């Protein structure tokens, strides 16, 4: 479904991502892990067209998305969340979802009503998303007034509002307690039930090992291992580079 071909990104002399190749299949939950500064977030940003690639290609469903502007990436069916939450704080919870409704399905309705119509349009799907994120009773609240966990959930719901096929989650568990992480894992699995493909970039091993089908490990911008969670856990290279220092 998503294929990265020899993707590289250099910032000046720093090789943030080097010759990275990955293939994520339809319906898969794919984990991308690695120590701090290993290039995980850069990879997400490259897929989303935040900054231009140095070399290599991003191919999604057979279409070349290398260096496509972000909004085209979204239109192609890729949604994302951010490591440090980036909600529209001065908009309400509901409006955050509303602005994100850019999918093909919405575009089929007349542009006039879609853009200039009132807030009632697209309500059903948004209602569904709010329920999914556990925010049904907070739709009129300004996003900035939400608690931290709620903000994380809203951001994920916002990414889903555009009806993506592939969801990139950039460290969604950062700052969460064990209970919240458990709920997150349930939510991720539920998404897969709905046919969503997920790329999970994460630090928290508990989560990654628990929900992913396959994992790739980055170190210094390069892929040092790829395989099923169990294999990765045993991989000596990974142990020295990463797991050796982190609590598995």
């Amino acid at each position: 479904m998503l294929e990265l071909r020899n993707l590289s990104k250099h910032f000046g002399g720093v090789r943030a991502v080097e010759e990275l190749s990955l293939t994520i299949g339809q319906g898969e939950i794919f984990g991308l892990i690695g120590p701090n500064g290993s290039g995980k977030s850069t990879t997400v940003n490259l897929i989303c067209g935040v900054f231009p690639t140095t070399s290599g290609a991003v191919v999604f469903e057979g279409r070349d998305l290398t260096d496509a502007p972000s909004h085209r990436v979204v239109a192609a069916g890729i949604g994302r969340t951010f490591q440090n939450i980036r909600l529209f704080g001065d908009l309400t919870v509901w409006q955050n979802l509303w602005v994100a409704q850019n999918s093909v399905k919405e575009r089929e309705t007349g542009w006039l009503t879609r853009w200039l119509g009132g807030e009632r349009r697209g309500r059903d799907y948004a209602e569904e998303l709010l329920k999914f994120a556990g925010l049904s009773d907070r739709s009129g609240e300004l996003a900035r007034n939400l608690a931290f966990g709620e903000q994380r959930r809203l951001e994920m719901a916002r990414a889903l509002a555009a009806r993506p096929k592939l969801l990139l989650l950039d460290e969604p568990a950062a700052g969460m307690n064990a209970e919240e992480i458990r709920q997150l894992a349930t939510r991720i699995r539920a998404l897969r039930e709905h046919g969503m493909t997920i790329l999970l970039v994460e630090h928290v091993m508990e989560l990654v090992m628990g929900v992913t089908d396959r994992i790739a490990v980055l170190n210094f911008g390069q892929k040092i291992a790829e395989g099923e969670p169990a294999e990765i856990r045993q991989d000596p290279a990974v142990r020295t580079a990463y797991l050796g220092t982190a609590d598995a």
Partner: protein
Amino acid sequence: MDFYYGMAQLIGVHTLLGLSAYVVLLTGQVSMAQAGFFAIGAYLGGMLTVLAGLHIVPAMLLAAVASALVATVVGFPALRVKGLMLVVATLAFGEAVRIFWFNFDYQIAKGNIQVGPLGGEGFKQIRYFPENGWSTADVAIFIWAWVIAAMVALWWMDRSRVGSVLRAVGEDELAAQSVGINLTAVKVSAMGIGGFIAGLGGAIYAHYTTHIEHLNFGVVLATFAIAYPILGGLSSVIGVLLAVIFIQGFLVEVLRFMGDWRNLLFGALIVLAMNVRPDGLFDARATRALKRLLGGRDA
């Protein structure tokens, strides 16, 4: 009574100027080019009625469209820069427009006098209103018809998805892109809408002051343009109107009796207002209260 109609005219025109900056500010762009668009509207509007003999309404619309086109063209390079760079870039553009009109001569004979813009000496006798027997009240009502139309359109836009999208872009461009918003389209359209409204305002301005010259459209006017929405608070079009009334009505007109003190108070009260209400005179809370008052659903 004439005086009040005159004030209504002035407040109406400045509200249009403020609204034009408001739209652009929603996308997070502080544009100091609004005075430039205003000038384009003023000169073209004046030329269309005086030189081409058009009726005021088509003259205004044509001037506004031209001004919107220029604004759209400015919108593209403006995408590259943000923050202070954008302030300075748009300021430079506004000044360039002013200097363009300063160097622009186009006069034709009409009766026994020459009419049309004449560079540094200005463009005089744009007397469409008095020549056609419009009373001060007529003109005030005419201007307010436009102002209300613009305000209703923008109020509606604010409540529609467009408004949320503009604000989303203003708040976080990266996040806005990542939910599929086309930044270029949004920012350039905002510039275009702003240019259109500024063009309308400029065209009326030329007609109600009857004489324009390049010095009218300098940095001071550009500053006023952004002052209205900022002082009014960016939460609704009502704020813009309130800020215009505060500046043009209160600081300029009501305080006139204070003579010498008026001008000292002018700056000082703006400083004070920003300290007391940094979110603007009419902030988000006030807007929500108003929406409830109007029976709207507080989504």
